């Protein structure tokens, strides 16, 4: 049963240097056509399930005009929604105006996710982003006043030439906003980004690790719960939509470059706008065997600090994870932990999760 849906709006007013997501520069006419195709894709694929989460991501969905946003929400109003739905839209501060916020309110959006990334001048220059901290403060107050009580902000760290001091200022600023959810991403220089082309290099692993510790420490001191590798929240504010991913549940993904997990297939949509506009949506289908599903389950569950619920695992796959994978060495050396019938990566080791997961998967008996 599918209970989640992702909608991709691949338009931005400005392309950030690090971004390898599927994005295009804002173009009014194309957006209209795009919304037509999006509507068609949803009509073709959506099977009327009642959804518990919808996430409109991007790109920068907030850069759409009021009319375009209204059109988008009209399309999405045909989706069946659970009464407790988590309905998120992403955006940046400058384009998220009062008018748009009121529109969000009207259509039932109850969660906002906004990119700050950094308040440091050099960092912003490097990331090729603009940010007005006064505007941020004002908007956050406005959002709260309008009744948005589930707000996420993003921060990026481990930016070349960034120091722990600079990062600390970023964190302090974000903490001052007193939002419910904070996502923290260490900068990855991905191929197909300006940074990669400019041959920028990642910062030293040791410093990166110190930054991660600083973030964890400071956020936890302010009562944020570290519930996923990159995500922190106040009690009860875990992103339900993201949990759908981490718990390896099924979901729809509509729009350019979006991906879905439907029945036994993980489907990735095309990143080519021209193909998409010709209703040629899909670029890749991965058929999942039972073993694939199990690998995904492990990889994704272990992103959560809680780790893998072994009872849930048993009920899903009908065998004990610990019987099928030899975890003894990893447990003995404290790279994995058993806690209340959960198998988890301890918090101080979660920054090594790739290596730990790979080792675990290798130890299949």
């Amino acid at each position, binding site marked *: 049963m599918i209970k989640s849906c992702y909608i991709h709006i691949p338009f931005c007013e400005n392309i950030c240097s690090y971004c390898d997501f599927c994005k295009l520069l804002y173009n009014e006419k194309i957006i209209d056509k795009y919304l037509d195709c999006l509507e068609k894709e949803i009509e073709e694929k959506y099977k009327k399930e009642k959804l518990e989460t919808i996430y409109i991501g991007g790109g920068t969905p907030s850069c759409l005009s009021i009319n375009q946003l209204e059109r988008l929400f009209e399309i999405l109003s045909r989706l069946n929604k659970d009464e407790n739905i988590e309905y998120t839209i992403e955006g940046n501060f400058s384009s998220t105006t009062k008018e748009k916020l009121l529109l969000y309110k009207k259509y039932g959006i109850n969660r906002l996710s906004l990119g700050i990334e950094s308040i440091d001048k050099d960092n912003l220059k490097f990331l090729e982003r603009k940010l007005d901290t006064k505007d941020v403060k004002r908007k956050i107050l406005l959002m709260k006043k309008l009744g948005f009580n589930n707000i996420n902000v993003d921060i990026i760290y481990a930016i070349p030439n960034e120091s722990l001091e600079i990062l600390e200022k970023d964190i302090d600023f974000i903490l001052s906003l007193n939002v419910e959810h904070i996502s923290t*991403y260490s900068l990855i220089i991905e191929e197909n980004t300006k940074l990669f082309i400019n041959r920028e290099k990642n910062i030293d*692993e040791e410093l990166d690790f110190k930054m991660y510790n600083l973030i964890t420490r400071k956020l936890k001191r302010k009562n944020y719960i570290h519930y996923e590798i990159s995500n922190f929240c106040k009690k009860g504010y875990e992103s339900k939509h993201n949990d759908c*991913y981490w718990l390896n549940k099924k979901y729809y993904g509509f729009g350019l470059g979006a*991906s879905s997990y439907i029945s036994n297939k993980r489907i990735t949509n095309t990143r080519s706008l021209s193909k998409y506009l010709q209703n040629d949506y899909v670029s890749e289908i991965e058929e999942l065997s039972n073993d694939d599903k199990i*690998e995904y389950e492990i990889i994704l569950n272990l992103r959560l600090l809680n780790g893998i619920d072994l009872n849930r695992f048993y009920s899903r796959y009908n065998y004990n994870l610990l019987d099928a994978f030899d975890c003894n060495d990893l447990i003995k050396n404290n790279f994995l932990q058993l806690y209340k019938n959960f198998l988890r990566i301890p918090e101080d080791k979660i920054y*090594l999760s790739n*290596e730990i997961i790979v080792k675990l998967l290798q130890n299949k008996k």
Partner: protein
Amino acid sequence: MKQENIRNFCIIAHIDHGKSTLADRILELTGAIDKRELKSQMLDSMDLERERGITIKLNAVQLSYKKDGKEYQLNLIDTPGHVDFSYEVSRSLAACEGAILVVDAAQGVEAQTLANLYLALENNLTVIPVINKIDLPSAEPEKVITELENIGFDKKDIILTSAKTGQGVSELLEKIIEVIPSPKGNKKDKLKALIFDSIFDSYRGVITSVRVVDGVVHKGDIIKMMETNAIYDVVGLSINNPKEKEVEELHAGEVGYLYASIKSIGDVHVGDTITLNSDPAEKSLPGYKPMKPTVYCGLYPIESNKFEDLRESLNKLKLNDAALTFEPETSKALGFGFRCGFLGLLHMEIVEERIEREFGIDLIATSPSVVYEVELTDKTKLMVDSPTKMPKRELISKTYEPYVKCSIFTPSEYIGPLMELCQDKRGTFLNIDYIDTERVTINYELPLSEIVYDFFDRLKSSTKGYASFDYEVIGYKESNLVKMDILLNGEIVDALSVIVHKDFAYKRGRIVVEKLKEIIPRQLFEVPIQAAIGMHVIARETVRALRKDVLAKCYGGDITRKKKLLEKQKEGKKRMKQIGSVEVPQEAFLSILSTKE
């Protein structure tokens, strides 16, 4: 064919002087092969040979040529061109009466030109000197003529050729018939046939290349190998012209192939003599030497379940590589594998490459070792071909290592750097021979182990590739040798141990641990790397623990892609060997060879 109309000859040359191209041209000229079907270098039948430009395996081809109304049978025997294969060269020379000595018109006489010439003279062959590649713009035939004169040839006997254009090749053929003697043997005598090569054919078993010296061998004869005492029925005889053609018999003077459903690979030794079981010859042909490998290393399959496959592949390679030896060996670090013996480093590389390429087995090769001699305190002597077999220090009274006499042939401007290199390699200077004003032969005595250890590379780099060298093992000398162990995470990795001269141990230890630090990736734990002699640590480095290996952002859309990333990481691990808790990449095991500082 009348015996007097047979000519058996080979072509000998320094590497890359155009031996194989000349052979091709001879094939073409005698009509054995059409120009159109001439794959470049027909005689080198293995891909690897063609790629490396080295003739690894012997091959014999029968050609016919008419001169003065008479028909002649020419048997051209190709020889390996590398110093590692000198025994095989000597056996193929023993199958001939004459040799064509090819010298590159631009390069002139080089180390192996001389080595091969001496080998040919030792085998009483008539040598025809040929200066090849005269078409090259850089050719200096006059200069090379002088060089050849300096080593004892008469100017009028020298033939100038270009195997590329064909110039001079018919003249050469005439000369072959004219000066190379016909085979001497007697058809009526008891059968003696020299095995000078063997290859394995999956349908027919071992196929031997033979030169019948005396008597006649027929299809159906029951034969005996005189060294191994193995007895077989001759199932078939054939010649290669250069397509295989079956024949009923081979008689004295002829060269061909013999197959006898030989499945047991140990039964066929290059250099052995085949005779008739019912009427055996009294004495075998002279010159047989059991193969003695000079370099050993451990070969281990990366995937431990491929051990049997590796055994199989070594068995198969051994069929046409008599010099290869191997026996099972266990390493604590690497599991089950084989201790393999080779004629030299090139031979070792070729075998490794063939196993990986032809049999699809990924290998870890441990660092090569020579055979050391150890005298224990109780006066018993021990041959040690692997560092793991080195006895404890307190049990050893003396250690000896094999030495070679090494002749380096070089333009005189490189004398300085070469002497420095040899000094650095613990060499003892013998003398310098001046071939002419610009070329010299420098003679040194060197420990064989130093040649095994990056000598070629440094020779090349310190002379811009102009020097060539040749060596022969001259015996053992006392030397202060110690076993140096490498410890990863506090545990000795047996496969990384080496035997080194005590005075050089510190330097080697440093280089190795530094190299390993570069090669071993950061892991979940900190990995200390130590080099130690006994309990005494002489060098140490640390691979710091991995700090960050995480997918920071991982949204829905990325899940498939990120999983692929992890798959890749997992695949990467398959290429590594788990030693204790440390993952060690393949290259680490050869790092011990590296001297890059």
